[in-house]
């Protein structure tokens, strides 16, 4: 599957517009929900999506399949551009505090419900992220979806920076294991 994606990017690099259309149909439905989750507004998400695919077409010649799958290439790109968008909005409104992600806000600290309950409460399917211990899931969500830096997360959670970094590392290691085990 990854090979097909890589082939499409290679064809795009050679200027094949039909390959681009196939590539779009394949990856837009994957990255659009991610972008929407980060920027929240559908109109903004559409803008970001367009920007992301335009850049993919432009940068296709620079893609190196040895460095990762086409899917990871697009997901990383989509997340970065979506975060750029909310950071720009945040700068304009001069608020240094990011809105809490629904998932994070909804997570009660006193008793951690189990993963399935939590996912059900959010009305989403259970993902690998939900299998992480609460403290690890929280820091990864604040970083990856809310675009907070380690320093901002430490301030937000009133935790030492070292603790935040360790949680991110453990969480990501666990996420990699869970993903590996389930695929």
């Amino acid at each position, binding site marked *: 599957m990854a090979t097909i994606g890589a082939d499409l990017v290679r064809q795009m690099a050679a*200027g094949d*517009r039909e390959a*681009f*259309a196939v590539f*779009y*149909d394949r990856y*837009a*439905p*994957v*990255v*659009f*929900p*991610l972008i929407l989750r980060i920027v929240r507004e*559908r109109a903004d*998400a*559409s803008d970001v*999506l*367009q920007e992301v*695919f*335009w850049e993919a*077409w*432009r940068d*296709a*010649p620079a893609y190196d399949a040895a460095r*990762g*799958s086409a*899917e*990871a290439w697009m*997901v*990383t790109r989509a*997340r970065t551009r979506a*975060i750029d968008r909310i950071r720009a909005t945040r700068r304009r409104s001069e608020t*240094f505090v990011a809105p809490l992600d629904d998932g994070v806000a909804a997570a009660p600290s006193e008793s951690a419900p189990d993963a399935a309950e939590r996912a059900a409460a959010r009305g*989403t*399917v259970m*993902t*690998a*992220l939900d299998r992480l211990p609460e403290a690890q899931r929280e820091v990864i969500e*604040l*970083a*990856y979806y809310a*675009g907070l*830096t*380690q*320093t901002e997360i*430490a*301030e937000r959670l009133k935790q*030492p*920076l*070292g603790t935040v*970094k360790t949680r*991110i*590392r453990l969480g*990501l*290691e666990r*996420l*990699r294991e869970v*993903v*590996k085990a389930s*695929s």
Partner: protein
Amino acid sequence: MNHEPYETLAATYAVGALDGQDRIDFERHLAAGCDVCEATLRESAEALATLARSRPPMIPPPAVKDSLLRRLATTTPVGRDVRPRPRPIVWAAGAVAAVIAAAAFTGTYVAARYEAQLGVMARELAALRTRVEREEAALREEVAIYRNAVDLLRDPQAQVVTLRGQGPNPAATGRVIWHPTNGGYVFVANLPSAPPGKAYELWTIGDAAPQPAGVFQVDASGRAAHRIAPVEGGKPVKVFAVTLETEAGVQQPQGPMVLASAK
């Protein structure tokens, strides 16, 4: 420095949360070439992509694709489509063979020159973009440091400590903005550039032996801003000092002291 701290930095970098001096340090480490960290970043990106795919797919508004395809149709990306396009020379039909030959030669020549020039321009543009991106990243880092320092100053627990030049650098000055639990920042001025292979190292001194608090370099104007991690267990710091050490930093001060706070 052993590799372990970089593994934590790599994870934080993978979720896009690394900032300040940590980010500068890690990007330097990555630029120097590290297969272990490269692999961590690659695997993390794949795991995060799998995570994205595990959510229900969503068809974006059709207008996005339409608009992209329209945009694509009107542009040829630079560096592609290298096949020379047939050049219409209908106007030359019926003209003398020599004229056709000359015109064709000129046409090809001019076109070739244009294409070469376009190639140069594209390369220059790409180089410029890389440079602007790099400068923007550096500026963002700087702004992040200042913003964090200002945020820290708002905290009533934060204190400002003055550092004075020692030994051969009486003109050197420094200020530490310090928070007992969150750490802080040091800003120095009028320090000469460290000799090749050397760097300045900051120390926090409490009741026990001096603790290393990171190495830094000064810029061409002799200034530097450097993040100081909190002291373990929030132990009080009585003196801040800067010494000149080897580039990689040392665990105990060995080189000459260039800046220190009053005891």
